[in-house]
C-alpha cells in the first residue's frame, strides 16, 4: 500500500509514530524483515518526511527526532569501519531491525488473537444457567462450661450494682397500682392526678411516684378500671372511675 501511495503527499497522521512508519516502509521492501536494508529504509524515511512537507512539522516532532537519529546512523554506517564508539552503527542498525520485527510480530499476533473463536461471537455460553448457590450456615461453638462460667461472671459483676439501685427511694409500679385501685373507687368526678400522690418531701421519690402513678393509671385505663382525660397538651391529667 505504501508502494501505491508512492508519489502522493504523506500524511503523518496516518502512522502512529515514526516506528509505525518505519515498519510500513520496511514492509514495502517486500523482503523478510530480518534482511531489510537499513540504508534503504533511512533514505525512504527521509524522503517521505520531505514530502510530508512543512504543514505537518508541528505535529511531527518525534518524526524529526527519529529522522535526525537515522541520518546519524546512516552517516556512521557509510563511514569506513574504524575505531567506533560502542555500540557500533552495525549494532544500532541491528537493534532497529529487531525493534521493527518485534512490533511486526506483535501486530501479527494481535491479528491472530482477534481472529480466534471468540466468546459471544463464535462460541456461546449457556443462555440461562441455573447458577450455583452457597448458603452459609454458622455452627456456634460454646460448651456447657462456657455457659456456666459466663453466668458466674454475670453474677459476680452484677452484685455491686444491685446495692446502689435498692437505695434509691422508689414507688414500684405494683404499689402505685394497688394504691390507685384502692382510691379510684370513690372518684366519680374528674380529679387531677396529684390527688392520688402521697405528699412526700424527697424530690427523687416524688419523681418515682409520679412516673409509677402515670404508668399505673395508663395500665388501669387499658384494663377499663378508670378513665383518663387531658384537655390540652401538657395540661393537667384528669382521672375518674370508669
Amino acid at each position, binding site marked *: 500500500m505504501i508502494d501505491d501511495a508512492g508519489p502522493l503527499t504523506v500524511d503523518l497522521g496516518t502512522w502512529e509514530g515514526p516506528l509505525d512508519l518505519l515498519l510500513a516502509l520496511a514492509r514495502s521492501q517486500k523482503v523478510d524483515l530480518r534482511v531489510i536494508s537499513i540504508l534503504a529504509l533511512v533514505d525512504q524515511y527521509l524522503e517521505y518526511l520531505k514530502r510530508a512537507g512543512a504543514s505537518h512539522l508541528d505535529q511531527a516532532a518525534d518524526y524529526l527526532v527519529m529522522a535526525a537519529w537515522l541520518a546519524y546512523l546512516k552517516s556512521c554506517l557509510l563511514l569506513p569501519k574504524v575505531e567506533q564508539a560502542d555500540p557500533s552503527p552495525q549494532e544500532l542498525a541491528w537493534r532497529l531491525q529487531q525493534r521493527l520485527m518485534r512490533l511486526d510480530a506483535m501486530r501479527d499476533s494481535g491479528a491472530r488473537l482477534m481472529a480466534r473463536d471468540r466468546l459471544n461471537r463464535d462460541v*456461546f455460553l449457556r443462555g440461562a444457567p441455573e447458577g450455583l448457590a452457597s*448458603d452459609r*450456615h*454458622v455452627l456456634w461453638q460454646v460448651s456447657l462450661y*462456657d455457659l*456456666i*462460667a459466663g453466668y458466674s461472671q454475670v453474677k459476680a459483676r452484677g452484685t455491686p450494682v444491685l446495692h446502689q439501685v435498692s437505695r434509691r427511694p422508689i414507688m414500684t*409500679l405494683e404499689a402505685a397500682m394497688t394504691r390507685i385501685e384502692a382510691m379510684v373507687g370513690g372518684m366519680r368526678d374528674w380529679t387531677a392526678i396529684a390527688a392520688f400522690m402521697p405528699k412526700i418531701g424527697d424530690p427523687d421519690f416524688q419523681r418515682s411516684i409520679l412516673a409509677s402513678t402515670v404508668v399505673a393509671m395508663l395500665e388501669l385505663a387499658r384494663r377499663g378500671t378508670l378513665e383518663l382525660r387531658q384537655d390540652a397538651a401538657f395540661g393537667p391529667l384528669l382521672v375518674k372511675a370508669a
Partner: protein
Amino acid sequence: MTAPDDLVRAVEALLFASEVPLTADEVARRLDVPDVRDAFARVAARHAGHGIELVERGGRWHFQTPADLAHLLRETRETARRLSRAGVETLAIVAYHEPVSRAEIEAIRGVQISRGTLDVLMEAGWIAPAGRRQIPGRPLTYATTPDFLSHFGLADRRDLPGIEDLRAAGMLKLAGDDWDIVENEAELESADESD
C-alpha cells in the same frame, strides 16, 4: 456412539445458548428446516440419564439439570464460630431465668444487649420467644429450647448448677449474692422496658 448429524448438533447448540425456552417451531424457523421433532428426540435421548436433560414445558424446550441433582447446586457451608461473650452470658441468663425479657436480661447483665445477640441465639436454635409478659409494655420473653438441652447434654434445665454449686466450685468469687435482689430488680426494671 454415532456421529451426531448437523441438525441435531444445531438444535442442541441453539437450545443451549438460548436465554429462554424455545418452541419446536421457533427452532425450525431459525434453522430453516421443516421439522425438528426428530432432532429434539435425539438430543433428549443423548442426555437421558446424564447430568443434563432436555425437557418440554408447555410446548417450549429447554435444558436443565435433573431434579435429583438439585441438591448439588445448593451447598450449605458450615463454618464454626465461637459465640461472643455477650452471647454466652445472654444464653446463660435465659437458661437460668427463663422466661425472661430483654430488659430483664440487660438488668441482670448490667449492660445492654444488641438485638443481634438474641438473633444469633435464636438462629442457633437455642432460645425461642416464650410469650409476652402480662405487665405494661407487654414485653416479649425468651426461653431455651429442647435443642439447647440436647446441645449441652442436659436432661433438664434444673441440671444446671445453682448459685451455691457455682460458689462451691469456686466459679463465683464474690460474696453476698442474693437471688431475691436480682429478681426484684428485674421486675422493677421491666417497667422501663421500651421495646
